[in-house]
């Protein structure tokens, strides 16, 4: 019983990474109506940047993460302003193809700049160690991740419900012409949202560096899982994304425990079942 | 006159907004009906429900006596329902002929033929050309539909709507965005089609001139309900209707 509960907690921590990347994807889609295929690559870039600042340059952990967010945010800005903006309004397939082109570029760029696979840098001292939960040592770092994930969830809720920027974004998301008519600078909102979403992805990547390998392929796996989560939760639905991340994270952890061979396949089966039963997603309005 | 479409107890909500709030309506064959009402009255939602683009929360829709409330759109088309769209909805990359050819092929069950040449569908092509002559676009037969002028595209919209030979055809603001000349052409076409094809048209319109010149019967909607029904003069004199339209000048 304890093993099961413990594995559930492991799953929850995993879910937080998924949540961070799905949240960005969902927000970007909700406002810009673009499915950002390159979102996984932003996650990856976030991880690489954080690794460089923390693991190679030895900067303090929090600073490394901050710089990683800024760097990836800048990349997101370039992507949106320089490229995506030119093709708003044409067939959405081409927007997808463009983001797909970004994946190809970023994947190789990362290899060129940083080379191959890396070691894992040490966990920052104050987050190291483990404490007993359900009779087994549960890493403090995982608790930290859980905390960050929940903080982000609450923070996003507060942002979109209570702040002026959040409400402007929501207005733009639901009716961009109307928002334009009442004086909202829609292109700037778009850029802001894209940068914000990129930073969320980068946060997920950056937070993972002490415990996960930083390698060129990590973005690809994450984006697939992010897509599955989005499909299960309902596109554009932040609450749905959060709950689906929890579901996928926890079930994925159990899948590793009980069916190690078919781990990834397991998640697909869940998605297929959800699709058959409720095609629009569990939480679609 | 037999009743083509009967709607009863219809309700439809979108989240907190109730678009259709208990509609009872009967549309008999042969009578050209216009549905009017202010924005948000539920006119387009009603068409969407009747044609299967949406399903109601409660209520039933019957077509020629048969319940079609949950029937898929393409099945309703097979039974004799059809519509045109307010926002232009034609097959832009196909030629003008191909635009009207598709519904003809669908009606004849020929859409699934995978290998024979399209040109070989002689009967269907002939019928398509006939429709083009009816709507006056036969000289643009091989042009890509997206290249037509706005007015011609509206005519094509009509053509595609009547190509499946419907008994009941909803026209959603058929004159919107047209110049006066184009509008007259469209109206004349509707009149002629109603006469020659024995199609019952139901038109949603904002333009009162169009309504009064075309309709045998007018249904006024407001806030998701039918406010009043009647002939043109009856509606003109209905006090509630005049109030809703904020001023009697509009209906004078």
């Amino acid at each position, binding site marked *: 019983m304890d093993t099961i509960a413990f594995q559930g907690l492991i799953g929850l921590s995993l879910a937080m990474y998924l949540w961070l990347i799905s949240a960005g994807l969902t927000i970007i889609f909700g406002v810009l109506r673009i499915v950002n295929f390159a979102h996984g690559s932003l996650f990856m870039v976030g991880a690489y940047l954080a690794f460089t600042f923390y693991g190679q340059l030895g900067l303090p952990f929090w600073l490394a993460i901050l710089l990683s967010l800024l760097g990836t945010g800048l990349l997101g800005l370039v992507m949106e302003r320089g490229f995506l903006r030119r093709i708003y309004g044409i067939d959405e397939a081409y927007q997808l193809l463009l983001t797909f082109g970004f994946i190809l*570029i970023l994947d190789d760029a990362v290899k060129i700049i940083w080379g191959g696979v890396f070691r894992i840098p040490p966990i920052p001292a104050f987050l190291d160690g483990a404490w007993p939960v359900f009779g087994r040592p549960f890493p403090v770092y995982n608790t930290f991740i859980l905390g960050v994930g929940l903080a982000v969830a609450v923070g996003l809720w507060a942002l979109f419900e209570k702040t002026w920027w959040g409400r402007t974004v929501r207005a733009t998301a639901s009716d961009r012409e109307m928002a334009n008519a009442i004086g909202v600078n829609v292109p700037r909102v778009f850029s802001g949202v894209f940068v914000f979403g990129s930073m969320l992805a980068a946060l997920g990547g950056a937070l993972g560096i002490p415990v996960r390998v930083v390698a060129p392929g990590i973005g690809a796996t994450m984006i697939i899982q992010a897509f599955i989560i989005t499909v299960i939760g309902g596109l554009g639905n932040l609450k749905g994304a959060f709950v689906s991340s929890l579901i996928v994270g926890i079930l994925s952890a159990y899948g590793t425990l009980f069916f190690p061979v078919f*781990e990834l396949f397991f998640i697909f089966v869940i998605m297929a079942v959800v699709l058959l039963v409720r095609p629009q997603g569990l939480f679609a309005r | 006159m037999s009743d083509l479409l009967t709607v009863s107890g219809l309700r439809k909500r979108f989240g907190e907004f109730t678009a259709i709030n208990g509609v009872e309506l009967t549309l008999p064959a042969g009578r050209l009906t216009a549905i009017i009402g202010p924005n948000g009255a539920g006119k387009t939602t009603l068409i969407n429900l009747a044609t299967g683009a949406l399903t109601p929360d409660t209520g039933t829709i019957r077509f020629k006596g048969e319940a079609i409330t949950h029937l898929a*759109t393409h*099945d309703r*088309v097979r039974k004799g329902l059809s519509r045109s769209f307010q926002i232009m909805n034609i*097959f832009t990359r196909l030629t003008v002929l191909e635009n009207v050819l598709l519904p003809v092929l669908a009606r004849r069950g020929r859409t699934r033929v995978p290998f024979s040449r399209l040109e070989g569908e002689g009967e269907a092509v002939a019928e398509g050309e006939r429709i083009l002559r009816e709507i006056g676009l036969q000289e643009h037969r091989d042009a890509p539909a997206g*290249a037509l002028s706005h007015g011609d595209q509206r005519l094509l919209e009509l053509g595609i709507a009547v190509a499946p030979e419907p008994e009941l055809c909803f026209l959603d603001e058929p004159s919107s965005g047209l110049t006066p000349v184009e509008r007259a052409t469209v109206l004349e076409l509707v009149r002629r089609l109603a006469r020659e094809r024995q199609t019952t048209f139901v038109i949603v319109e904002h333009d009162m001139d169009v309504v009064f010149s075309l309709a045998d019967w007018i249904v006024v909607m407001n806030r998701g309900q039918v406010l009043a029904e009647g002939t043109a003069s009856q509606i003109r004199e209905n006090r509630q209707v005049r109030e809703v339209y904020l001023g009697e000048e509009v209906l004078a």
Partner: protein
Amino acid sequence: MPRRLAALLMVLVLVLFALPWLAGRYPLYLAMRILILSVFSLGFNLLFGYTGLLSFGQAGFYAVGAYGCAKILLAVPNLFLGLLGGVLAAGIAALLLGILSVRHTRIYIKMLTLAFGMMIFSIALKWRDFTGGDDGLVGIPRAPLEIPGLVSLSLATMERYYYVVLVVALLAIGAMYRLVRSPLGLTLQAIRDSESRAEFAGVPVQRYRLVSFTIAGLYAGVAGALLAPLEATITPPEAHWSTSAEPVLATLLGGAHIFGGPIVGAFLFFMIKDVIVRFTQYWLIWLGAIVVALVLGFRGGVASILFGRLLARRAARVR
């Protein structure tokens, strides 16, 4: 079809048939890869250019075709059975996954197909007992083509296998040509232009999307099945989304709205890859840059550059 174009094509086909005498092993190999990618891309474009559905998971069916053919050939060395088996397996997979996917909006389909493609990849990777895991299936024989009573052809030489690939590819191309010019082809294109309008013309749109999806899967399966005996080894990356990208790129390069676009694109794809790979191992970044450039500026591909003026003139004549 204009007469000059028809004549040109006929010359091209003759050249293709004469290729083993005209060129050495490497160009022959390249030609086969181009033909295989052409078939793969035509199937993809039936979905994308003709039906309006973008699928990023076609490599899944490509791999099913390849693995299916390989498994059969490793057990029963008969190319005909191998090809048939691979294609059928791919078709069934496409039908099943299609049923799950086509009822959704276009946006969901893009994500779903990517996910399903990668699902097949992960199965290929993990199911060691059946697929050989990341080592894949090796030693796939270029088995003789045997149809009892009709044909018994040994395919020991590459030249002979080339002819198999050529004939199958030409048949597939011909069938697709007839398909897109048929009433079914028209229906799919109407669905691409306006699904709502197609519904109101009486077309059960979902059903036809499924038909298109299944055919695309079959074509991917043909391509994959032809690949297995050629490469003699099939590994999981054949199902990866980076492989799914190849028909996408070929179609984008050549032009999605002209029948021959994907074929031209397949040719260009290999030419470009060949050139880039001589200079750097990082050819994906160049590919990505080409995709970005195409999407921003040349969405109609090479075809639009060549035929663009012709199409514009047709449209202008109407006004």
